[in-house]
């Protein structure tokens, strides 16, 4: 079968009717770009979250009294490490600091810099720090969001904290945390564990919570139950629970976005269907003439399929590429806030490229297939009418 002349005719038709097709191409490109951006962002965040959670310890132990999370006694560290199968037990100190000038909360995290860091993504960064130099005076590492707010009020080198005991702690800015960990670290301040305890008003022999690992997956439930049996006032959160929490959060936002998006897509499909249902006399006549020249119904439908596939596949390729640039190069301005607004500080996130082929296939199926169908039904209806009727 010689398809060259047919394809040539399709391209010719597209070219001669370029004004008519351009608006559909433009709207379709924008819709595909928005949908792709949304999927790229969720993929990227999901991947980022999984990386963060996978780098966390297997369990977090918190003390609960009267239903509230309170500071955990440090001696629980010794108790937990004595259990066979438990490795890498570490205390964690964190809390919120209210930054009055901008009315925002910063998250203070205290770490033992000489201890092996249990959180591996933090470890990678902390390994680059000269610990002696860092501890030579009261220093801190700050997230990009914190830096932005401190800069606004001219705290370029240091910031003075007011701990609960009404004293003053002048802490110098040592460095800014890298952007790629921004989802978690935009509002974060990292400092020495003892300084953090002073600023947060945590007793020396207490910590916020305790992290520990159980390498043997089969042992995890047993060890968890063992610790619970010894301490009734504790809560143990598994890494998987955290992951589920993040997923649930992301799914909630995704669902709202998807519903809004579906409304737009359905409206677009209805407009296209309407357009072809009340196909103008020129289009109708064109089909009638082709039928009178000996074009079969199948060939006319094939013409319209190829014509529209060229439009929508080009808009799909363009839309997906624009989305990639928008999300991974320009960091999705406006759209990112839909997903990243959960921190009390805005995140200047650099999305890590994460392209899921299944998502791209999903866009294709959910967008192009219904649109082609919405075009073909009216075209088929016209094709089966008598050519004289169609040419009228």
């Amino acid at each position: 079968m010689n398809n060259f002349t047919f394809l040539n005719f399709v391209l010719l038709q597209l070219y001669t009717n370029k004004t008519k097709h351009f608006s559909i191409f433009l709207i379709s490109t924008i819709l595909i770009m928005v949908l792709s951006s949304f999927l790229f962002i969720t993929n990227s965040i999901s991947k980022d979250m999984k990386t963060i959670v996978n780098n966390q310890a297997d369990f977090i132990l918190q003390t609960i009294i009267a239903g509230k999370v309170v500071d955990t006694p440090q001696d629980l560290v010794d108790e937990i490490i004595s259990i066979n199968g438990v490795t890498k037990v570490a205390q964690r100190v964190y809390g919120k600091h209210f930054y009055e000038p901008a009315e925002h909360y910063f998250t203070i995290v205290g770490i033992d810099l000489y201890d092996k860091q249990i959180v591996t993504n933090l470890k990678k960064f902390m390994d680059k720090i000269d610990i002696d130099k860092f501890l030579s005076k009261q220093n801190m590492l700050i997230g990009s969001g914190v830096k932005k707010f401190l800069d606004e009020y001219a705290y370029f080198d240091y910031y003075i904290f007011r701990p609960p005991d009404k004293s003053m702690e002048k802490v110098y800015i040592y460095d800014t945390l890298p952007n790629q960990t921004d989802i978690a670290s935009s509002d974060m301040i990292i400092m020495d564990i003892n300084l953090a305890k002073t600023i947060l008003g945590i007793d020396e022999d207490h910590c916020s919570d305790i992290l520990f690992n159980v390498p043997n997956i089969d042992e995890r439930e047993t060890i968890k139950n063992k610790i619970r049996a010894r301490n009734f006032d504790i809560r143990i959160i598994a890494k998987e629970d955290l992951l589920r929490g993040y997923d649930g959060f992301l799914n909630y936002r995704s669902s709202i976005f998807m519903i809004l998006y579906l409304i737009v897509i359905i409206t677009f499909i209805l407009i296209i269907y309407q357009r072809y249902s009340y196909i103008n006399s020129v289009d109708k006549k064109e089909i009638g003439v082709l039928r009178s020249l000996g074009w079969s119904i199948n060939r006319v439908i094939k013409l319209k399929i190829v014509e529209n596939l060229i439009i929508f596949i080009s808009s799909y390729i363009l839309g997906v590429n624009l989305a990639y640039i928008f999300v991974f190069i320009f960091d999705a301005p406006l759209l990112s806030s839909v997903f990243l607004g959960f921190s009390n500080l805005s995140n200047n996130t650099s999305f890590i490229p994460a392209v899921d082929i299944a998502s791209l296939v999903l866009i294709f199926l959910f967008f192009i297939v219904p649109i082609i169908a919405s075009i073909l039904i009216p075209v088929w209806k016209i094709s089966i009418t008598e050519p004289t009727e169609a040419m009228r």
Partner: protein
Amino acid sequence: MITIIKMENLNKIFNENKANQFHALKDINLHIKKNEVILLKGVSGSGKSTLLSILASFMKPTNGLVEVNGEFVAKLPDKHISEFRLNNIGFIFQSFNLFEQLTVEQNIMTSLIPKEYTQDICDKKIDDVLKLINISHKKGQTVSNLSGGEKQRVAIARALVNEPDIILCDEPTAALDYDNSLIFIDIIKQLQDLGKTIVIATHDTIFNDADMNCRVIDIKNGMI
């Protein structure tokens, strides 16, 4: 001489069993021989165009027999009707029905696409038919820039490019001036010499004076 078109007891009723029912063709019996030129004459609304549309298989009769070039066209399924039309019928419309934004060559190509010829064969066929109709010099021109007479010739070329045996013309001179109408009549004579069977539906009196070897059939109120 072989009978190429046979119509027996042919009826066409529009909007059958409705308040606005219209009996367009009534018991038509007509045999047309190969290489004949038929002038189907009648006033507007007499049923000429309906008869041509049925011959071209654009529409089906309500009842009766239609045999064109050995095929019972009223009973053919769509795929075969299209093939039949492609191979046997060349239709020239009153309003030309050309693609105004395309060139002369591209317009003629629309008839060749279903044949799935290679580009070389298409090019040759287009050149031949343009030479025959004497419009080769307009090959690359956009149809919208042509005069009425030139458009008519492009429409003829498009109808002829697949070398059909039967040419059907619906009011072919209605949109033409006197000189161009005479040119059209010359082309028809030329086509008759090539052995084509031609049916022209017209109410133009110019055909009365034309020196044509043709059979005139009058149609009135759907009857001949």
